[in-house]
């Protein structure tokens, strides 16, 4: 089966802004996303997921490199100063590239 390359962008951030970030990435062209609950530690300290204010989420979205670039720039501008957030990306092989 021939597979194509797309970009997988992963965003780790505060649960409190889940709906906003998901809405943003959809507006910027992502066709879907997956969310898992997480906890962690970083520049903003320990976030142990004991209750809402202290919880993280991990959002993944597979998209074209261009959309990934747009999303990261947008997140950088809008959230990085004020929210616990980490964003990274890498290439992945997908089977139906038209889907993403």
């Amino acid at each position, binding site marked *: 089966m021939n597979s194509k390359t797309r970009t997988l962008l992963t965003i780790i951030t*505060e649960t*409190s*802004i889940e709906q*906003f970030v998901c809405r943003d990435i959809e507006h910027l062209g992502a066709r879907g996303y997956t969310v898992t609950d997480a906890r962690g530690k970083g520049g*903003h*300290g*320990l976030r*142990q*997921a*004991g*209750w*809402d*204010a202290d*919880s993280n989420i991990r959002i993944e979205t597979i998209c074209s490199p261009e959309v990934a670039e747009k999303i990261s720039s947008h997140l950088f501008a809008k*959230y990085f*100063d*004020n*929210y616990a957030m980490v964003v990274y990306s890498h290439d992945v092989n997908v089977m139906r590239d038209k889907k993403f």
Partner: protein
Amino acid sequence: MLDPIIMFFLFGIFAGVVKSELRLPSQVYDFVSMVLLLAIGLKGGIEVAKQPLGQLVPQAGAVFIMGLLLPLVAFPILRSWGRFSRADAASIAAHYGSVSVGTFAVAVAYLTTRGIYYEEHMPLLLVVLEVPAIIVGIILARGLSKDMQWGSVAHEVFAGKGVMLLLGGVAIGWAAGPEGVQSIKPFFFDLFKGILALFLLEMGLITAAKLGILKKYGIFIVVFGIAMPLFSSLVGTGVALLLGLSVGGTAMLALLAASASYIAVPAAMRISVPNANPTLSLAASLGVTFPFNVLLGIPLYYEMAVAAHRMMGA
């Protein structure tokens, strides 16, 4: 003697401080707080049905105004003495102008155990007091600009878990009345204190985590976290006397004024005042004011209410 639910809180703090692995899964914490919020709402709603509207409206109005004013007192203090940024000062002020449902639940348990009467529609005033400080906080932080999205702020406030469950409980309690609610009493009312005990155990664990952070922010936050509720409780006592509340009701309103939010307000500030540091306001509200109110404040405000009523009676 200490109420056992307070001991659960102390036990939680202890377990947190000794770094125990004890932890309530967040889903269980959600469950437990949902039940508490609904139970408090239901109890209040049943009573609201009994009150003449002509009495509820002025009370709600007075409490709403108190909620507008308290953050306006806190803000300049936080700015000048606390040297906090505008956003941080506004956010902390909003926390202290609003209320803590957990603290209220402990006060309910305190008064009930001692058989002290209070106006049982208090949960309605609780809901009323949740909201105004949030609006004031947002305006203090961002000014009154035209492009404020008040619609989404309102949604953030009313559609948040806490306010929604309280209002839902009040509405159901009001519509179903005392007999209607009878069938769900074993779950929501008979288990209330036991569930509150579990809730306070987790609150103790969370408080212990905030204690560590407190050090980072220095002594001012500790002083403010005790002085501000003391001041607010005086305001609350005064308002209660003006409204002609009973001794128990006076203590309750003092406590509502004195308590600092840790659910509705932080959630709203995180969205509407993103440049405020949430760790700071939660360290104050959960690390200082919650334990202060639960351990010392409630009996103190009650003594104040007794003394005030004695003075007024004289």
